[in-house]
């Protein structure tokens, strides 16, 4: 029974991970990639780890797996934020079909550097 639960969680998680991977390949610009996919990945990994919790059913292992999940959920959004912010300030272009942009450059007068592409 535990195997079934655990195996299903592994599979489900893997699917989310794959989806996110496909997403990152398919999405048109950096922002859409980040908006769409980084969390799917986080969720997928969380599910896989949950799978390990159910596989071993050991408090020590469970707490370690949970620690990873908690840590991932704490850090993933921050990471996405800092990169998204850096990209925007570094003038990584938006997809041409972006319909609205309320983030005015004047908010950040100091940001006048060119793109970070080398």
């Amino acid at each position, binding site marked *: 029974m535990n195997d079934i639960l655990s195996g299903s969680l592994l599979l489900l998680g893997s699917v989310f991970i794959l*989806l996110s991977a496909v997403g990152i390949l398919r*999405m*048109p610009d950096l*922002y859409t990639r980040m908006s769409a996919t980084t969390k799917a990945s986080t*969720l997928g990994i969380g599910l896989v780890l949950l799978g390990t919790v159910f596989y071993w059913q050991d408090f020590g292992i469970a707490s370690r797996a949970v620690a990873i999940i908690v840590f991932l959920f*704490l850090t993933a959004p921050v990471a996405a934020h800092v990169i998204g*912010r850096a990209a925007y300030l570094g003038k990584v272009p938006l997809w041409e079909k*972006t319909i609205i942009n309320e*983030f005015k450059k004047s908010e950040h007068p100091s940001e006048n550097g060119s793109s970070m592409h080398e």
Partner: protein
Amino acid sequence: MTPFLLNILLAVAWMMLVGEVSAGTFTAGLLVGYLLLWLTRPGLGDTRYFSKVPLIISFVLYFLKELVIANLKVAYDIVTPKNYMAPGIIAVPLDVRSDIEITLFANLVTLTPGTLSLDVSSDKKTLYVHALYVKDAGQFRMELKNGLEKRLIEVMR
């Protein structure tokens, strides 16, 4: 969050890490936690915390629901060849005030698929959010404020 509560939390976290629930590990956790809090004291500032366990639980459940729904939505978009996206960057005025509230809110927004907190204005009154499915900017703002932000404020205050 008072340092004391934080200390307790760290002690619990310690027990989890060690993988053994006992008075010994808890005491060790308390000690380790106390030491670390003393070390990191300047960084914590003055925060208040009062226990709202039920609120927290319902908030977590709400968020998980949102998370799964949004994930599925985006997943559908990824696996289907057609693109439903209408992305944009929206300025969301903030009611949350403290740094920790802003951070939590922004991170929860980011964690939800389809949205990404790009930046907080320097006066900390506006959050700029990149979203995949923007039909109406005003509506998007209201959904975010009435849903996630409202519940977060309930939990935090």
